[in-house]
């Protein structure tokens, strides 16, 4: 089972997407972002070294799990000042074990890139679909994996530099959520669905 191709793509997309979410949801001030080019379109990339390395560590530590095809979901949770998630950007990922030479329909991944562009575009206009966030929000990255994976990850050396810890329940559950679908991606390499779980009591949670 070779998930390396799709995991490369997913890892890239995750990094872009996390940056875009932080930017469009104004979790960090716009001044720490810089315009970069990805998928032939301008995207916003964080230039704060700490934040950038954190995002980089996150996605790169997801990669080994992705390469085994064991990631079910990646969640970017937006936490209010009380540490309660008010929004969750959920990436549901289903990878297909495709080898590079097996990509027949889209050998240059042009359609894939187009889909990823649409993904980014949708993310950048997602704020029109969502209620404004309370001030002072932070974020966390969660991954959903099968039960046997955490044991492997806690023992593997490659995970020790940037270990994943089990998420606390209050950080994972959105109070009274409703779902805002954003984008679905179907390609030879993977299927992905992005939706937002949004708390209906966003503002009240901060009050």
């Amino acid at each position: 089972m070779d998930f390396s191709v799709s995991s490369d793509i997913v890892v890239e997309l995750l990094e872009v997407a996390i940056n875009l979410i932080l930017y469009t949801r104004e979790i960090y001030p716009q001044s720490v972002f810089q315009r970069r080019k990805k998928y032939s379109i301008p995207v916003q990339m964080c230039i704060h070294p700490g934040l950038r390395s954190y995002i980089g560590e996150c996605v790169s530590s997801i990669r080994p799990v992705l390469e085994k095809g064991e990631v079910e979901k990646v969640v970017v949770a937006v936490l209010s000042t009380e540490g309660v998630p008010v929004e969750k950007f959920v990436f549901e990922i289903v990878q297909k074990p495709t080898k590079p030479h097996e990509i027949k329909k889209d050998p240059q991944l042009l359609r894939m890139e187009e889909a990823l562009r649409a993904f980014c575009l949708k993310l950048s206009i997602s704020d029109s679909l969502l209620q404004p966030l309370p001030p002072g929000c932070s974020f966390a990255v969660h991954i959903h994996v099968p039960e046997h994976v955490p044991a492997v990850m806690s023992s593997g050396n490659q995970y020790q530099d940037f270990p994943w810890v089990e998420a606390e329940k209050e950080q994972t559950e959105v109070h009274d959520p409703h779902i805002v679908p954003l984008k679905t991606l179907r390609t030879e390499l993977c299927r992905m669905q992005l939706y937002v779980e949004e708390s209906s009591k966003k503002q009240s949670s901060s009050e």
Partner: protein
Amino acid sequence: MVSDTSIDSMYLENLDEFINDEGRIVTYKWLSLTLGVHTNVAKQMLYHFVSSQHDSDKGDNLNVTYIVSGVVAREGDHPGVHKIWLVKEDSLAAAKTKMKDVISVHIYSVQKTKLQDMNVLYSANYDKVKENIMSINKYSGIECPDAKVRSTAALAKIRQENAYQAPPEPVKKESKYKPSQIKNDIKKEPGSENDDKQTNGKSNQIASMFARQNKKVEVKKEGAKHKKTPSSAGSKTKGGISAFFNKGPVVKKSDAAESVPLSPSKTSPSKSESSKCSPIKSGSGASSPVKADSIVSSSSETELQESVKESQVESVDTDSSPKRAKKQSKIKAQQQRGKNKRKKGKCDEAPKMKRTRIMQLSDSESSSEEEVEEELFLSPSPPPPEVHGVESDSDEIIPPTPQPKSQDLLNKGGQGRRRKLVDKTFEDEDGYIVTKKEYEFVEDSGDEDVAEMKMDTSPKFETEISPGSTKTSNLHQSKTKTSPQKKSTKATKKSQVADHKKKQSNITNFFSKK
């Protein structure tokens, strides 16, 4: 057009779907390409939509971007400048006030989202624009009748013209390997008695590298082969005398032997002697294996050479061909680096001429490169092997033609004079270490003397650098290969100096003989 009520309502429904239901960013460009209407119509539709939404009190959640064109009032030294701005609705008034003359205000886009980043507008247009990239102005008011699409044939022609500029690149690629090569050279020099020979071998290897990269170079190589053949032939035919001339080939052999099995050849003097006796065999084996790391042909060559030991000529030919190729490649490199193409050509044309041709390496780097190439074979570094593979192919191809030539040269050499390629290293006015390759004609009678000279020189080398130290230095170099060029350069300088001493002594002997 928009005034037509039926069309109007249809468009409005469309826009309502795009903007409110799908949440799209609708720019006039996107709308024009999507609906296939003129851009001006698209703008009117957007305007109509916005005003109708405002009328129906739905417009509050709409964000409109305007494209404002006008002459900006003077700013300092700049008089009026015609500017076109994309501005958000809330800053539209401010933008207008900044302009002395507002020429036009159009709606650029309508979207529900509050744009954080105007760049998203580009993203929104991107795919639609790419779809229609060949006829992007079909709905636009801007036309250029002189702009014509080039035919594929014309495009191919242009590409060919551009392709001519490509050749220089290979040289640069080669230069990347220089550091590692230099390191290798250092290693070899101390261990081997025949530094001069090594240098020759290095040059050959370098040449081979070039040959691999540049197919065009092969032609030049043929000429170079002629040059090389004399020296190799001389070595083959005459044992003692040839040794001097052989330095190139013999050294190669010894070097190669050293390089491939590294320690064994260096450690055991008997091996080196054997290599001298059957210089071709050892040399070819050594050199070929190095090249062959990735190539099968090399092993076959070595076997062949071994079997042919008795018939040294053939083996020599095979050796000489790679060597020639290397030399040629060296020459090519030199030409490319320096400006000696003409000189080389002359040499090729008149290999038998008695004149002394001087091959100049433009700078110390080139000389180091040559030396280094041999080292490359020794070094396990990944990049060289690939190159070697190419080389081997070229070598294989080359041999058939050169052999007869080489034989002729051998015969001639036996009769009278031989042309030998000698590396002279010295420091020039600017403090650069320059290695010159000179072709010298040596009489056969003098060969014995030369051989004696060799004997004298080789001990010096050994005394200068102990084998153990060389080994350590080698290790050092191998470790440092990736990063430190400085060390390698230093090492090369030392080696060059050593070569210089040897070479000079040889040369002086040569002259004294005459």
